[in-house]
């Protein structure tokens, strides 16, 4: 399983700290889009949008696909899925252990009570 080191996390959080970049991610939540389409809603230059996209790319939140001169971008959900998978795996692990732990405590209780009766 992929782990995220603090350097990568810093990039991710840095990427999300900007409102334009958050809006870009929102657009991409609907599916893949090309750079010119992404730039359309903003009163900023294509170059400025490109800078934001590079930040998002470096943070691993979007992925770029090149088709000739057209660059399309797609939301990358893997970091979130990895986090969810980690949680699910340990939830199963601890739940099973805790079931057994409870059963074992019941056995101990019975043993202790039996010993008490004999004292």
């Amino acid at each position, binding site marked *: 399983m992929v*782990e*995220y*080191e*603090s350097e990568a*996390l*810093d990039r*991710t*959080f840095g990427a*999300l700290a900007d409102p334009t970049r*958050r809006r870009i*991610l*929102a*657009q991409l*939540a*609907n599916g893949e889009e090309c750079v010119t389409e992404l730039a359309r809603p903003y009163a900023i230059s294509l170059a400025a949008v490109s800078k934001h996209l590079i930040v998002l790319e470096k943070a691993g939140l979007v992925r770029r696909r090149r088709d000739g001169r057209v660059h399309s971008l797609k939301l990358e959900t893997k970091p*979130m899925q990895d*986090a*969810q998978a*980690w*949680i699910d795996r*340990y*939830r*199963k*692990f*601890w*739940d*099973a*252990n*805790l*079931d*057994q*732990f*409870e*059963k*074992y*405590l*019941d*056995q*101990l*209780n019975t043993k*202790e009570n039996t010993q008490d009766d004999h004292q």
Partner: protein
Amino acid sequence: MTINSEVRKPDDATLVLTRMLNAPQERAFKAWTSPEHIKHWMQPEPGMVVPFAVMDLRVGGKFRIQMQKPDGEFFTAVGEFREVTIPERLVYTWDWEKDGSGTEFGEVEGKPTLITVEFLKRGERTEFVLTHTRFAKPESRDSHIVGWSRIAENLATFVEHA
């Protein structure tokens, strides 16, 4: 599998399980921390056994719990105690050995996670809280907690309103 614990997920990197144990605090704590007890209950999957367990229950002390599947495969957890407050609270790292088949401490995966367990006295019963966090290093853990919950929240809002 039925999920019997109450589960909270404060962020995408932390799991919190809470249970009410039908045993007094000291007994529950001892059963959790003594190797001879652990061998009886540590069973993440049916049929698994614990051939080997050691616990050096003090700050800086290490533990090793070797679990084995019926087909012979080993899963060996190792870690170090960061906080030891008998009989109510433990903080320890949790990592897996790469191989895990030996009887001595072996090479670890090197991605420690962090576990906090609390045994809270509730009369003759004990409230048990296990918190398992994905990052053992405090600095990465803190940035992670703020970060992931914010990302999750943001993305959820985006998808709703986009």
